[in-house]
């Protein structure tokens, strides 16, 4: 790689250059009062259209992505994102619809959203769905805020604790705090299930609810879920389902039937909307009977001859309120709708079947290649955990080392060091859209790393070797802290333009 690759778009700028085709014609100067006017130009790039297109196209080529590499990032469900979902969500009629367009001009969109709500209700076994939350973490917030609204509405205000298993995603405890609750952690037992005795001790009149992921974050199905539901309900608490792992059970078992009162789904995982380099997600929520009055607005309802419209605070006086200025990540919701319609009823359970087949196959093949599974006696769900505890001791090979060396082999790394309770862990989620050949290639790469660790650990410790950069010094980066390009705007435009190519 030549050093010009690291040039920022600002360093490619030249005073007087611009993408002229994009600018509207000149208008008369405004009459904005002088004291409210901007005095100096902001310092955005000054580049031609080709400069910009080439710069960002080349940047894109420095990314690993599902479209270019196997991406078994556990807990993130990095499955193929069908292209039709994107192109159909970007039809002009959808793109140009203003969020406040009248219902008379929105029936195509509203009808689609209503059907999406209905399909999500069906596949989760819940009574109603709101599409408002803009990501999983906001879906979690919504769920716990509804639990709080439920207790408050009953005058049951002494419930101050949310129970969270120690294996939970970090968003769970962070969410409970945002909703004004205290967090009570309970341990996971040796087989990966919730420790029932600890749960029994933890519940009481202070319990507002429990946040659970099932299958859990350690990649196994919580077998005693009905018993857990009874314990929590008997104590007066409610059950919140974190839908991070819904891909594992789609069409097989429904959170509503397991006893959950409220759930969120990550449409960007289970329903294959793009991860986009870190969003946009969509954290639709589903509720049972008890939480129905507290559902966030807006969501789509049928209104007789008028067709479909958004429900507002007037329809739901006990709603927890609004989560976004408008109606959530509509474009993401359209993509999820197209995906669900293409899979159809029979396709839903194929998702979980082949996600599970791939995970179990990959788990056993890695075990044969010499890796240890964290829960070898259990069925893998859609994902599983490999622990490098033994190798870390014997050869010094850590989970982080495996992750970096896998990049050299052309595979994105699994999730590392999560969940926190398994030492030196890799959380591996192959998803249903990968072929046997891809999985076999991944096993071969893992076996090669294990073999290499026995004879040349130093090469692995220095990996990656074949990427645009070697390992970074993150500690130094956090200390020096450079998060914006500091050169003044005038100097940018004088900076030598790098020759690309």
């Amino acid at each position: 790689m030549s050093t010009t690759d690291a040039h920022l778009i600002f360093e490619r700028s030249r005073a007087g250059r611009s993408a002229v085709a994009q600018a509207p014609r000149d208008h008369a100067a405004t009459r904005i009062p002088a004291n409210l006017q901007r005095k100096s130009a902001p310092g955005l790039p000054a580049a031609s259209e080709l400069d910009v297109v080439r710069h960002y196209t080349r940047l894109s080529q420095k990314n690993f992505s599902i479209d270019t590499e196997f991406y078994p990032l556990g807990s993130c469900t990095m499955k193929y994102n069908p292209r039709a979902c994107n192109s159909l969500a970007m039809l002009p009629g959808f793109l140009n619809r203003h969020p406040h367009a009248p219902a008379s001009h929105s029936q195509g969109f509203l009808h689609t959203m209503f059907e999406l709500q209905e399909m999500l209700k069906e596949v989760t076994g819940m009574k109603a769905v709101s599409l408002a939350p803009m990501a999983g973490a906001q879906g979690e917030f919504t769920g716990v805020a509804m639990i709080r609204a439920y207790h408050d509405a009953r005058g049951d205000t002494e419930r101050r604790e949310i129970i969270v298993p120690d294996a939970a995603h970090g968003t769970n405890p962070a969410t409970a705090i945002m909703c004004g609750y205290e967090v009570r952690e309970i341990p996971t037992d040796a087989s990966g299930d919730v420790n029932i005795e600890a749960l029994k001790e933890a519940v009481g009149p202070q319990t507002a609810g429990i946040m659970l992921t099932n299958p859990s974050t350690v990649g196994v199905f919580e077998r005693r879920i009905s018993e857990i539901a009874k314990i929590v309900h008997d104590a007066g608490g409610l059950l919140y389902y974190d839908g991070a792992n819904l891909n594992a059970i789609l069409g097989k078992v429904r959170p509503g039937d397991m006893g959950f009162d409220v759930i969120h789904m990550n449409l960007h995982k289970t329903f294959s909307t793009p991860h986009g380099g870190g969003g946009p997600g969509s954290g639709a929520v589903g509720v049972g009977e008890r939480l129905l009055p507290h559902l966030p607005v807006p969501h789509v309802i049928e209104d007789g001859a008028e067709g479909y419209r958004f429900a507002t605070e007037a329809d739901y006086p006990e709603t927890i309120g609004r989560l976004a200025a408008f109606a959530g990540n509509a474009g993401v919701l359209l993509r999820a709708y197209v995906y669900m319609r293409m899979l159809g009823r029979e396709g839903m359970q194929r998702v979980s079947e082949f996600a599970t087949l791939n995970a179990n196959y990959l788990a056993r093949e890695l075990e044969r290649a010499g890796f240890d599974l964290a829960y070898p006696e259990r069925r893998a769900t859609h994902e599983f955990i490999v622990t490098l505890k033994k190798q870390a001791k014997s050869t010094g090979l850590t989970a982080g080392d495996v992750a970096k060396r896998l990049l050299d082999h052309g595979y994105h790394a699994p999730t590392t060091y999560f969940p926190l309770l398994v030492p030196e862990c890799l959380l591996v989620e192959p998803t249903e859209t990968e072929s046997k050949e891809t999985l076999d290639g991944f096993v071969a790469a893992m076996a090669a790393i294990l073999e290499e660790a026995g004879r040349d650990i130093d090469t692995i410790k220095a990996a990656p070797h074949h990427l645009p950069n070697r390992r970074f010094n993150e500690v130094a980066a956090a200390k020096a802290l450079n998060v914006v390009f500091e050169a003044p705007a005038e100097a940018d435009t004088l900076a030598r333009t790098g020759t690309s190519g």
Partner: protein
Amino acid sequence: MPFIPHTEEDIRAMLDRIGAESVEDLFDEIPADLRSPPLTGIPEGENEMGITRLMQERAAKDGMASNFIGAGAYEHHIPAAVWQIATRGEFYSAYTPYQAEASQGTLQLIYEYQTMISRLTGMEVSNASLYDGASALAEAVLMAVRVNRRSKSKRVLLPGALHPDYRKVVRTLIGNQGIELVELPFDETTGQTPVDALAPYADEDVTAMVISQPNFFGILEDVDALTGWAEERGIPVIAVVNPVSLALLKPPGEWGTNGVDIVVGEGQPLGAPLSSGGPYFGFMTTLKKHIRQMPGRIVGRAEDADGKPGFVLTLQAREQHIRRSKATSNICTNQGLVVTAATIHMSLLGDEGLTRVAEACYANTHALVEKLAAKGIKPRFTGEYFHEVALDFGGDAANRVQTMADAGVLAGFELGRDYAQLDGCVLACATETKTESDLEQYVTTWEQAA
């Protein structure tokens, strides 16, 4: 099977290696009484051709009316290159850049974004985005409470002339944190938030203050006076701004004497289509001294083992996946793809393009007002406005707006929904996308709707 590559032979071979008879066996840990009933409520699968036909019909139903609604989401031209590049698979189907070496494209782009949005707002640092403008304001309020530890009241002043749905979202998201939100009245003549409105709090403990520029009515606030009042009392200021307006308006980093503490806003006008309200992105910029209190992902420059520069996620110790219950926010995924589009959009427009867009928006909205004034329709407020204006349609506004919509013109947002005293007023916006004949069409449909 759509999107599943397995052949019968693959399935057999894989089950053999697992030691299972059937795929069904792999679900034997799920109790039988919990198994899902058949999903009869979901239609049978459609192929791509079939779903394309259906979606085209649905999209066409929502028509192509000429849109003059703004109210927080604005119609702008988006260069073709923006979404063509943003939806390249390498951006579209990557995730949060946890493996920095394999994510330099996304990381460098976010660093460039942080630089652009910091410069536009006149601030020192930025995060990688939040969900939308409204939720970004809620996060800013929580952040301001963390920043201003001296204040005990947890009382935050926010203008009544702030977007009503922003106020609602803030209430939803911070409702359980013991924060008191106080709404400041606006001047019914000018539409501005007068400094006088702050008088009752002159000697009170105030934790933070919000200023919206322009405010919800499109009116320009006297930001120096409002910021100055807060500065005298050591109260952190949160600015809520429209990023396109900042090509012309004084950036919040220069308001008052020393500028504000936190800036947030809706990023949609920078390259995101209207798309029924999302996905958009919320931006947040601040001062270096507050960065550890800022929520969300942050990208920083770093050096690799060879001393070669690159980019990493930094200051992760603030975040939920490390700090769990002590995190600055529960936010995890943000709006990466829309930020990708916005960064390309800002690069294509540059200072000159963005300025011309802002001037065209200003000119078109003012031209519309002139045309309507000739017909006797006046702005409701006397204050200077940027690209949005409250028009007094009179008592029959709701009917007239619907009749205009049926004739192909979405006239604006009816202010009576949130402000009883503004019943009959319509908030209208004419961006650079509107031509002279679009403006004429607005006027003629208004007349015909009488």
